[in-house]
């Protein structure tokens, strides 16, 4: 692998992490969804670049699927959901932006340290890819933890899944069928969450996860 290939894939994976950070400090739902779409576009570019570098045509299909579902369909669906549900456009955070960003930095540092330590035998590209992918996963999880709105839970979950795809594209030889299965499961998850959101709104008139806690049934 020559220097340019490495640099470009490094840059794309880094951009993915950057978008992960951007997701963390968005306070408006529309902006959140847009940043997510941007992250998905970068993801499809990164996967396509891997396809070109590794000379694996089926990764192009993965890239196309990622683009179609994650960069177009899901953001569009979420936009419509927000309009139809008429939810508040602002996101309430549990933890302030500053501490969240610091925690995100710590996550990325941890991911890089872990990967550098344990993946000494793999080649540099795969190792860096895995480190970035793990960072994206951790950032996605962090977002699910620090946000209160159901929609941002969904975004966090999808962003976590972006990290998984990045890791899978870097690991050599993931079969196409797995890609399809993952893409399909994401769509199913979207449908389920969609139904869930509507039912929530109908039942409780809010999309705040806190509203659920009061209805958890018997409590000891």
């Amino acid at each position, binding site marked *: 692998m020559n220097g340019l290939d490495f640099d470009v894939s490094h840059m794309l994976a880094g951009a993915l992490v950057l978008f992960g950070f951007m997701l963390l400090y968005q306070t408006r739902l529309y902006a959140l969804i847009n940043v997510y779409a941007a992250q998905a576009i970068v993801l499809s570019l990164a996967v396509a670049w891997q396809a070109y570098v590794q000379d694996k045509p089926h990764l192009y299909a993965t890239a196309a699927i990622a683009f179609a579902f994650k960069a177009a369909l899901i953001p569009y669906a979420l936009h419509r959901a927000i309009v139809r549900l008429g939810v508040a456009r602002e996101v309430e955070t549990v933890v302030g932006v500053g501490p969240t960003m610091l925690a995100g930095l710590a996550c990325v540092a941890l*991911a890089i340290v872990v990967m550098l*330590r344990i993946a000494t035998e793999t080649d540099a590209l795969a190792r860096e890819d895995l480190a970035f992918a793990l960072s994206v996963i951790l950032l996605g999880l962090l977002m*699910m933890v620090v946000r209160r709105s159901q929609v941002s839970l969904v975004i966090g979950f999808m962003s976590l899944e972006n990290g998984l795809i990045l890791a899978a594209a870097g690991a050599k030889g993931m079969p196409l069928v797995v890609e399809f299965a993952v893409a399909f499961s994401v769509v199913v998850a979207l449908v389920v969450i969609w139904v869930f959101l509507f039912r929530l709104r109908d039942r409780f008139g809010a999309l705040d996860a806190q509203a659920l806690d009061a209805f*958890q049934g018997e409590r000891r």
Partner: protein
Amino acid sequence: MIALVGLLLVDLGLLTLAGIAAVVARRRDAHTIVYGAALALSALGLAISSAHFLGREAPASLVLPIGLPWLGAHFRLDALSAFFIALGHLGAAAASLYAIGYGRHETHPARVAPFYPAFLAGLALVPLADDAYTFLVTWEFMSLASWALVMAHHRRAENAQAGFVYLVMAAFGALALLLAFGLLAGASGGYAFDAMRAHPPKAVVAGFALALALIGAGSKAGLAPLHVWLPLAHPAAPSHVSALMSGVMTKVAIYGFMRFAFDLLGPPDWRWSLAVMPLGAATALIGVLSANMEIDLKRLLAYSTVENIGLIFIALGLALAFEADDLSRAAALALTAAMLHAFNHMLFKSLLFFAAGAVLTATGARDLNRLGGLFDRMRWTSLSALIGCAAIAGLPPLNGFVSEWLMLQAVLLGPAFPQWTLKLMTLGMGAAVALVAALAAAAFARAFGIAFLGRPRSPEAARAGEVDAPMRYAMAGLAGACLLAGIFPGVLIDALKPLAQATVGAAMPLQSKIGWTSIAPIAELRSSYNGLLVFVFFVTAGVMASFVIHRFASAALRRAPAWDCGFPNSDPATQYTAQSFAQPIRRVYGGFAFAARETVDMPRPGDPRAARLTIHMHDRVWRGLYAPIGAAVEGIATRLNPLQFLTIRQYLSVVFGALIALLVLLAARS
């Protein structure tokens, strides 16, 4: 190979029969169809497996493409598995014959008939399994089918409790076996038994695997302290199933242990027997003492099963120790004694459970204190039960004597051990076997005496009548088998030769060479036993005694009211009760084994109220081991309960925190 395929087809037939039984279970003649077909299939399986075993055919194996895709299902038929399959099918055939009659009285046939053939299939499949996955699947299938049968009458609270305890113990035992297989498979993951045989584990690993196998197979066999479920679950099932659980399923568990100890773990270490023999002795003692205290007939029999399993484990431990010390002839003797006792126990324990079922059918009672006087009312059942009781009590010329005598012969070879620990321990084992045999005789004198002799202790017992023909035939057949196996033990010992040869690499001397059906375990000069001679002696003495009595005494006999010491009320309750018969043994051993106390509430002179004798006993194993574990689990569960009521975000935080913690650990470690 034909035999293996044939046995698998028999098992397939049994599984199909389970499906058919589910459909026809509500018909009036369902029990005839289901149990008749089960009888035919078991007889076929018995014929195939015993032909393979007695014909000393080479091991056959087969891989079927079912189960895990990369492993398949391995099946193998060798001497060890053929013996246990033949034993199982013989027990199953007797139980099916019995059930043709017993099933007619079943109140919930739809809850028993479908699971019965499935249970038989499970019993017959476990010994055929030749990889860890197939073994565990068939083992669990057997457990679950028997659990369903235990729960057949689940509306009785004690049965539901028994089913719960059984399920927990079965799951625990299967977990131990799973871990044992995991240890044997090692990092390479060779789960086929062939792969395990090819790479015997290192000494330490083998020790751990043996301990796990002892826990896993021992919990199913009823090894102390894991025996607590057995006296609850075996009696809760319908009687023909109780017979199978006690007579056959415990033997399949012993097979599981032997497959580990004598086959998969490689050459044995003499230290293994330091665990196996004392556990066997403790099991036998706990079992026989509990049997002496128990007043429920079926639970008494279940406790006696625990005792016999203990005896078999003592003999197996001896065989392991002898084999480890290269005393292979002695190992063959101990192993033959264990296998002969397993076979004999299947015969007489099935017989006794059948008799208990017959008594239950005739009187509706299991409590010994509601029975009595059945000898005149149920002649067939009583005579069969008498033979069974004499056999299990180890009286010559019956089969129980032979196997226990062989065990003691093996014990007498103990001084040949090079290790002093083993020399001393075999001495203790000899004492334990002798004590257990004597206590078992006491327990069954009590069981038979209280249940069948004396005057009826309840109106139900007074009204009892003889049971259906198939039940009588099954009992009489097993009683005849006990007698034959006792009179001609040499035939059985010679038949067990291939098993001993395959398992410990040596066999007992050929018994058919010794004249007059004598058996001599080591050499004729040293010790020998002739069942036929003892039998002829007993018959002659009995005939002569009865001749003399009838000739000289019967004429002078007259029936008159018994002298009742001037006591006005000669109620049947004034006879010995089950508790009063057990009092001497309770006074000697009860305090130590059960913390037994007697309190007498004696009214003052002039006070007309009755005096009361109250006996307080509790199971030390249950209180000392199981109750604290149960309390600890309950306490932890209560502490963890709030975790069920977190918010979504808190759950996610827990996941996130756990992930971060693991990653930090990973980064710090590497």
